[in-house]
């Protein structure tokens, strides 16, 4: 059961890892890891949905685009996001969505804002049966 999200240590910031049986699943898990740095994603109710479309030059940069597009949309719509779905990856284009609700300091256990996903320690690859997507995020 390889689907999970995880972290790796970085002195000033934090590294996030998404693991899945498919590439979309790895991207989704990494998004979950990133948003869980900011608040309890498990406590976010999927009441509102936002759409994400992005493209890049290669899978690694597409992964960073996906994470940064989510950060921007969450911010613009003033939502805490808790559920992430990559609907389609075609070439280096991605269609996805996420669900959440307005953040509530009483319920969501707010932590530290993530400023951006970066190209540092960036990796998107297939290892045996699983896909791994990782990078450092600036907090």
């Amino acid at each position, binding site marked *: 059961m390889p689907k999970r999200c995880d972290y790796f240590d970085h002195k000033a910031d934090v590294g996030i890892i998404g693991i899945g049986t498919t590439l979309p699943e790895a991207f989704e898990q990494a998004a979950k890891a990133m948003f869980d740095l900011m608040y309890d994603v498990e406590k976010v109710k999927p009441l509102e949905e936002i759409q994400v479309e992005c493209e890049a030059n290669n899978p690694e940069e597409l992964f960073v685009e996906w994470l940064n597009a989510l950060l921007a949309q969450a911010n613009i719509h003033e939502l805490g996001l808790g559920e992430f779905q990559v609907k389609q990856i075609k070439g280096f284009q991605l269609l996805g969505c996420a669900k959440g609700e307005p953040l509530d300091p009483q319920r969501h256990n707010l932590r*530290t804002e993530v400023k*951006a996903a970066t190209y540092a320690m960036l990796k998107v690859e297939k290892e045996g049966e699983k896909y791994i997507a990782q990078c450092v995020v600036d*907090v």
Partner: protein
Amino acid sequence: MELKNLEKINDYEWLIPASGEMKVPVRIFASQRLMEEMDEKVREQATNVAYLPGIQKASIAMPDAHWGYGFPIGGVAAFDPQQGGVISVGGVGFDVNCGVRTLKTGLSLEEVKSKLKELIDTLFRIVPAGMGSRGQISLSGKQIEYVLTEGAQWVVEHGYGIPEDIEFTEDNGKVNGADPANVSETALKRERKQVGTLGSGNHYLEIQYVAEVYNSQVAEQFGLWENQVVVTIHCGSRALGHQVGTDYLKTLAGASRKYGIPIRERELVCAPLDSDEGERYFSAMNCAVNYAFANRQVITHLVRSGFEKVLPQAQLIMLYDIGHNTCKIERHQIDGKSKEVYVHRKGATRAFGPQREQLPRPYQEVGQPVIIGGTMGTESYILVGTESGEGKAFASVCHGAGRQMSRRKAMKKWRGEQIVRELSEKGIYIQAHSLAGVAEEAPLAYKDVSAVIEAIHNANLAQKVVKLKPIGCIKG
């Protein structure tokens, strides 16, 4: 860091000679102890920077340097556009013009002590901070454009401060060459109601007092005296700046491929300064620089209104406002010639010595004040820029203590409540929006700031003027 293969220049300066395709050597300013404790990654990242086209003199790392993304945090590098020099998001960071501003209150510790709790509680209510916080000011499209081009000057003209605030802000609170046409719609949308907000992470609003004076003559020039209470604001350009970084990371990734720039770490993607991509990034980054100045200016206004309620006798006067995530055009002496170069400072502070005409008149004689923030439990320092620092490090010094433990380790080791209690026992009153955030920022997660300052002082990049100790702190 392993010290072999490093040349020791003196007790506070180390050199990695240029080899292979490196354009310049790496120069690290630190004591032997700080060098030994320094991350191996600093060597790797500072070396990678030394390979970039058009870099001048040396790739420099400060005593608080640690592993960053692209540049080390605490990294300085200057580039000459005439020699193919480049500009990189990795050399500025995502929180563009994150910086510190210190205000003098004119009140002594004795006068403030009995009102401290009330003051902090009031400021905590007035100054928006923490994840997802929004400010009081809603800017229209046209008004955002003014903030991006005019920075702190525009917000002061609209009632959020006094003209002296501008005089004592780096670049007078406004850098030129900021064209909002280079800022994306997404960045503008993310701005909504964020001007005048502190943010989270290592950002803070702190009440401190002058605990020790090292140089009474310069302290007097700065208007600082023993036991005087001061306020320091640490924050940046919020989501607008983050989005500018994000947008141009992608643009510069494309530019690196287009111009065939050899980069040794992906986060070092960059564009020639005289290319369309490089010029657009510089312009958009300048918009974010102005936004950060405006942000700290509006917070200053809020802090004044808080003092008005609790300690109306206080007169909040600017010491200085200075950024530590920037790229600026500056004139420096290079190989005996005076040249205009683009100085990247990633987690490093500008520290002009005397005679720089950009400085406010009262500081031209002695050099600029340099504000170095500690952590919420430890002291901060005010230094003064030196002529020697101009020559050695493009007039740059460190920006803080520098982390020695990752955020995740800190979170596992401490609980926020425990840190708040321990600091309270030491006489430091904390108000925080996130206790998890407090644990991440635990004082012991940082290097010993006094060791970092000693290295700066002894390397003569700047000189110590006063030490500040915290008595109250607001965290996002």
